[in-house]
């Protein structure tokens, strides 16, 4: 009886700890959402006011400042870099998962290192080249810089997913007379849809979350939503309400991505390293 009782108590303690962790995780989000809906006076009130009349003033003020344009820039950049990353990265991931040609280990290592490398190692020469080619403050320039992050990631994610698909599938297709490429297009890709979705969502989220490259290589025309969000610090001191409203708008798509891809996220992060 003592043993059973002890197990029960341990279970309660674990649940209580889990609740504390969840409170810690959700606390900044809760703070952002409530602050974005508060009047300036209430935003600074301590002890915090939990029940208040919500106002959308902050959101309207943020939109008036031209936040929607930066939002659109972020959307366009996320889509463009994801499109290019998938077109290049999916075939590459398939090849690295299946083939055994000379130089494969080198390519695999390079892609892993590119995925882990600090962007500051690339940004100075990129900046110099961009200045000469007039690529600063253009979509093209930013998409190219985003590729250094999203492309290795897509290859990494897709290699992992292709590893999980039995070889027999494409061998059957090849017995039926498909070329290898035909087998990839007609047989393999359709069953990799969850993997493709995960790679796409990751690529979107990573482009969306970018701060370093757009800060250096972007400009007024291509200003992205996170950069503009941080800009609310310098106008007229720190305006918490507007800052929080902008933050909520930036976070909304990321939350949608996360919920859409929840099952694939962890598998994608593990990539081809561990099965």
């Amino acid at each position, binding site marked *: 009886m003592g043993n059973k009782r002890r197990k029960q108590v341990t279970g309660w303690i674990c649940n209580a700890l889990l609740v504390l962790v969840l409170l810690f995780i959700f606390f900044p989000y809760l703070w952002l959402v409530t602050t974005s809906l508060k009047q300036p006076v209430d935003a600074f009130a301590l002890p915090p006011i939990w029940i208040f009349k919500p106002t959308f003033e902050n959101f309207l003020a943020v939109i008036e400042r031209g936040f929607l344009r930066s939002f659109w820039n972020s959307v366009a950049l996320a889509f463009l870099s994801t499109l290019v990353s998938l077109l290049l990265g999916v075939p590459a991931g398939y090849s690295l998962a299946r*083939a055994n040609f000379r130089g494969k280990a080198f390519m695999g290592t390079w892609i892993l290192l590119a995925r882990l490398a600090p962007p500051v190692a690339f940004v100075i020469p990129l900046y110099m080249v961009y200045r000469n080619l007039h690529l600063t403050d253009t979509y093209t320039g930013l998409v190219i810089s985003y590729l250094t992050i999203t492309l290795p990631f897509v290859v990494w994610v897709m290699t992992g997913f292709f590893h999980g698909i039995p070889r027999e599938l494409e061998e059957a297709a090849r017995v039926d007379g498909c070329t290898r490429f035909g087998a990839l297009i007609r047989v393999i890709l359709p069953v990799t849809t969850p993997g493709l979705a995960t790679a796409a969502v990751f690529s979107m989220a990573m482009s969306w979350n970018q701060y370093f490259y757009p800060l250096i290589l972007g400009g007024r025309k291509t200003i992205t939503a996170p950069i503009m969000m941080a800009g609310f610090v310098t106008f007229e001191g720190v305006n918490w309400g507007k800052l929080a409203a902008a933050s909520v708008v930036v976070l909304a798509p990321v939350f949608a991505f996360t919920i859409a891809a929840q099952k694939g996220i962890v598998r994608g992060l593990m990539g081809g390293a561990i099965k």
Partner: protein
Amino acid sequence: MGMPMQRTPAFPLPGKEGQWSSQHSAWRARAVQFLDQRIFVLLVLPAFLVLFLTTAGPFLGGLWFSFTNFNLGAKETQFVGLQTYRFVLTNPSTQNAIFRSFYLVFAAVGLEMVLGMGLALLLARPIRGIHLVRTAVLLPLMTTPAVAAMAWRMLFNTRFGYVNYFLGLLRLPQLDWLGSPSLGMPALILADIWATTPFVASLLLAGLLSLPEEPLEAAVVDGASAWQQFWHITLPLLRPVLALTVMFRVTDAFRKFESVLILTGGGPGEVTTIINFLAYNVGFYFLRMADACVMAVILVLLMLIAVFFCLKWLQQNEAA
């Protein structure tokens, strides 16, 4: 990461069976065969070329700059050999930044691995609604780092921030988180723990859930305590996942940027100026590009060393 050998085509290629008789078709068949044999190289080549151009090219460019005295503010750029390296490496600011990078990496990643392991064990229990909790835990790891840094900056605010408010409720001393030199790094690490412990926990949870059950059952039969099971069975089995997670976290901590720029600005003083942030500052604020490139090269070397050891750790266990 051993890969089975590529197999020979399992079907007769067109042309071999004499389906096509004309010269044209024979060429076509040969072209198809040629492409089919080399398809794997052709599939990987575009991605690799683009990646090589966008990463190796700039990196080599930066390596070249590191041997010059390139400065956007000055007119002439000359090859100066190792002079820039000598200047940068003997500079107290750089030494401080390297030290701060190691401080951040060891403290943050160490704490996150321990806390992440704990959280993973909490999440591994088959209780009702646990799937929802596992999804909720994914949110911080996808959250825009700039937004997280901004939120923590306001939460750490001395007068109006909720962190101090809660400390006050608990009758603990209220601290000047972002203004006191001894607290800059702890504040940065706390924000990092919030952002990435869920990442660590999610990877370790995936590892825990895929462990074979037999060794644990055998240990239970032998009367091992919960702690012994964890320490002698679970942890060794988990080592590949641990190595991978440490590799991701260490490289990520070395290149941390938004939270330094937005949360602490590298301060107070230089207590949170890690080498990644110093390189950015020196390059794009003071326009001393050569110095920044030297720092970037140092950072890449540190990253390579970390990756090397983690991969060794990872593969050692695959062999065992």
